[in-house]
């Protein structure tokens, strides 16, 4: 079993090997389903020049947003970067490069990257600024653009539970980009709420099989809510 035991007990061990100018793929959608402790560790280690691939860049002071505070991020590959004043400032000051990528294209870039497919054609973005400079090919009379997939040096993922072998399940919509991110890292690190023994998770219910996972660490999560909206009370 020990050869398959992916559990590490310190954040130092979880991100060992992370260095300047690496590409880090991060799961999460907004602040939902983000590996909070791993992000905090990246800030603590202080590596710089990072390219971060994530749908969003957190908010000021939380999530990936904290990596902007010490200018650790050189480039963001994201679909939506609103609601973050520091991000906006660094973007306008030219300190931060942003490659805006349609959400579905971003998900597919990671899925394809993890699946060993270097590029794919999609209709998304054809005829828009996203398609500029990209190869166009027609299939059945419709034009598609060629998009290249992404594999990161590291992938940081948030799961609900994992067993020691790295088999993961996600909870509710905290799944989001995490399963694709998990496949798209040369080293994939998963931060979980609970570590269980092999056999405790139903094999057919596992979202991410352990083969994609290199390290598992148990974290504690604040789970900040970006937009808390509740049902209006009936009069």
């Amino acid at each position, binding site marked *: 079993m020990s050869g398959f035991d992916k559990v590490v007990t310190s954040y130092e061990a979880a991100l060992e090997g992370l260095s300047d100018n690496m590409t880090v793929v991060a799961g999460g*959608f*907004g*602040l*939902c*389903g983000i590996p909070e402790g791993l992000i905090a560790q990246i800030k603590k280690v202080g590596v710089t020049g990072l390219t971060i691939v994530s*749908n969003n860049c957190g908010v000021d002071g939380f999530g990936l947003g904290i990596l902007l505070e010490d200018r650790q991020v050189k480039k963001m590959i*994201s*679909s*939506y*970067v*609103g609601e973050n004043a520091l991000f*906006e400032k660094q973007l*306008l000051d030219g300190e931060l490069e942003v490659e*805006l990528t*349609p*959400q*579905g*294209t971003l*998900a*597919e870039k*990671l*899925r394809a990257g993890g699946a060993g497919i270097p590029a794919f054609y*999609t*209709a*998304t*973005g*054809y*005829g*828009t*600024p*996203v398609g500029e400079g990209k190869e166009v090919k027609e299939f059945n009379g419709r034009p598609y653009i060629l998009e290249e997939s992404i594999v990161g040096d590291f992938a940081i993922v948030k799961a*609900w539970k994992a067993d020691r072998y790295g088999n993961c399940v996600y*909870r*509710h*919509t*905290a*799944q*989001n*980009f*995490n*399963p*694709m991110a998990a496949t798209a890292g040369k080293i994939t690190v998963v931060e979980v709420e609970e570590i269980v023994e092999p056999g405790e998770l139903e094999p057919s219910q596992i*979202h991410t099989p352990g083969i994609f996972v290199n390290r598992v660490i148990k974290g504690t999560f604040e*789970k*900040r*809510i*970006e*937009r*808390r*909206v*509740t*049902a*209006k009370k009936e009069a």
Partner: protein
Amino acid sequence: MALTRDQIAMRVAQEFQDGSYVNLGIGIPTLAANYVPEGIEVMLQSENGLLGMGRYPDEDEVDADMINAGKETVTAITGASIFSSADSFAMIRGGHVDFTVLGAFEVDVNGNIASWMIPGKLIKGMGGAMDLVAGAKNIIVTMTHADKHGNSKLLGECTLPLTGVNCITRIITDLAVLEVADGAFHLTERAPGVSVDEIREKTAGKLIAADDVPEMQF
């Protein structure tokens, strides 16, 4: 009279067929969920990875792991499913979502849409909008017919960076329902009390209108 936001949403909801899978954008499109006609069931898709989006939660139901594409806390209906963002966009890009409703800055006579970026202003990103307009079977654009300065948003050719090309077939504004085909806007309905002349005046792109255009029914 020009329609209110809720009246536009009401008219949008009349488009839905029983058993439709529907993705609603932020703003007026989201309001359409409140006006789904009696006897019609639709299932709402939220592109972060939820099919069967329900109402907002009560205080004791709020769950940080349960949000919609607008990052708001939500609930799931009975029979909902939750999946990865890759699966979510397989539904969208693969043409499995029946209706997409979204807002726009501009639409033109060739079915092009601009909805995500105004040069010189801060760019927040396209999110899933480019995938949605590339993939859905029926795309309905909701917007005011003209901007607050009175400039038409229905143009001969979009001036802003595009979200998608040749993809918009139906537009529901505060003044009219229009189809986009053969390089023109075709007026099919007008808001109660709004004349064809007023719509023509506020439509910069080529407009084709019959002598007798019916009013919307609510």
